[in-house]
């Protein structure tokens, strides 16, 4: 999710509050589909369909925003609105009439009981992605996504994305259709959020509207801003550490953790607008160079 936002914001210049929107779409779609399909290998189909659904939603939402020339702050506002609408909508689905096939949406209590991701293995045995296996799967996915994004941002496409962030008009005047590039970026970033949503749902066999609402929606922005939005490596490292500490603090007090998040955001804006991880890395780089330089002199 954070990597997707980094792509959107850091490279594409589009600040989206919609990461949890797509997280939610991915998670709920997976929940509904997996419940209806039953477990087994069909969970993979549910995964793919959930991603497809989220990507399709991103195409539609992105089309209206980008072709409508919504930019800057308003891009954030529209995505935030969409997120809140989805969260509230799912929140009021408590009654038994809100069901899709066999799947109850359950309002604020959230969906549960869908089967985790499963791969049919040789013969009759199956691999359930639970516990440790799921953890490895997530690690593998993160590495794959990270590598794929690295390739993407260093490709022609990545160059154009950066160009559009720097100066959309100039990019347009170099013959690039800015809107198409922005839409593709938006869809990729959103699909990554949806992938996170699917993994989350599969992990806890649970998803609730609180994963979509305002506090949740602000989180990825804090992670990415704190880490340094212009570098996917920094975002990967930063998000990992933030989440790690966040979990540690949450054990004692959830409120304290949220307050700390807010404080971190403020600190980022005031002290290190480029992001802490990026700044720390640069400082270390300078320090090492100075050491090298003084070593040469001596």
């Amino acid at each position, binding site marked *: 999710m954070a990597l997707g936002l980094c792509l959107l914001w850091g490279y594409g210049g589009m600040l989206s509050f919609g990461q949890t929107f797509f997280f939610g779409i991915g998670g709920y779609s997976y929940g509904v589909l997996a419940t209806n399909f039953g477990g087994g290998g069909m969970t993979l189909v549910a995964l793919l369909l959930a991603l497809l659904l989220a990507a399709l939603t991103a195409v539609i939402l992105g089309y209206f925003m980008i072709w409508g020339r919504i930019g800057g702050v308003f891009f954030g506002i529209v995505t935030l609105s969409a997120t809140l609408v989805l969260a509230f909508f799912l929140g009021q689905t408590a009654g038994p009439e809100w069901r899709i096939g066999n799947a109850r949406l359950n309002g604020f209590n959230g969906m549960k009981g869908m089967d985790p991701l499963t791969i049919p293995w040789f013969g009759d045995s199956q691999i359930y992605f639970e516990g440790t296996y799921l953890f490895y799967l997530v690690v593998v996915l993160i590495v794959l996504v990270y590598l794929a994004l690295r390739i993407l941002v260093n490709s022609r496409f990545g*160059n154009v994305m950066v*160009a559009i962030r*720097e100066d959309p*008009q*100039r990019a*347009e005047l*170099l013959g690039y*259709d800015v809107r198409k590039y922005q839409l593709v970026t938006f869809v990729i970033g959103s699909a990554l959020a949806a992938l996170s949503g699917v993994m989350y749902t599969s992990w806890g066999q649970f998803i609730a509207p609180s994963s979509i609402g305002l506090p949740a929606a602000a989180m990825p922005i804090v992670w990415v801003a704190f880490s340094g939005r212009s570098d996917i490596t920094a975002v990967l490292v930063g998000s990992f550490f933030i989440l790690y500490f966040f979990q540690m603090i949450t054990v004692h007090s959830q409120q304290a953790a949220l307050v700390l998040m807010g404080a971190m955001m403020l600190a980022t804006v005031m002290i290190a607008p480029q992001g802490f991880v990026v700044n720390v890395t640069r400082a270390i780089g300078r320090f090492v160079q100075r050491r090298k330089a003084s070593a040469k002199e001596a």
Partner: protein
Amino acid sequence: MAEFLQATAISKTFGGLAAVSGVDLSVDEGEIHCLIGPNGAGKSTFFKLIVGTYAPTAGSIAFRGENITGMQPSARVRRGMSIKMQTPSVFKELPVRQNIHIALQHHVSKADLPREEDRLLDLMELSADANKLAGTLAHGQQQWLEIGMALALKPTLLLMDEPTAGMSTEETFRTGELIKSLNAQGMTVLVVEHDMAFIRQIAQRVTVLHFGKVFARGSIGEIITDPRVAEIYLGKTHVA
């Protein structure tokens, strides 16, 4: 044969203000055409209509016989136009070389990219600054970088809005010589300009805009000796 670039009865109004009204302009293949006029004559508006950042209120624009009136700027660029805007708009946070790279990667194969980058950097006298961020260049150098990016597209028609704004006299002269040498290689150029010395240096044909309308047109010789043009624009003292 159809005109190379043909604007027909083109108008643009902002609210009640007619910035450009009923302008006809044709640019022939292979010429350097200058568009001049006093401040507020509608030069820049007209330029943006040609580029496609503004949509005209009325009239049509054709490029090499194709109607491009409703096209996106990017589509016009892909048809062979290339644009240098008035204020230098380069990617300030990126190195000079990457600026050129982004402009080139369209149509140059990966193997040829470094050589083409070097050629353009050399042409624009920016080789020494290739790794600097574009935003740290002097104003005149940024203008040159942007001209380099415009040339990277290998245009058949180069459109420039006040390319020498903010340049020193010497830089302005060199820009003029560059434009003339590009033109000698067959590039058609349309320049919107203010600086009369520069126009005398490069222009072949001149169109004068005044209050959004064509006021006069002719060869550079005819225009600078036209007393009416002198009156509205050059100021009588400049004619001698």
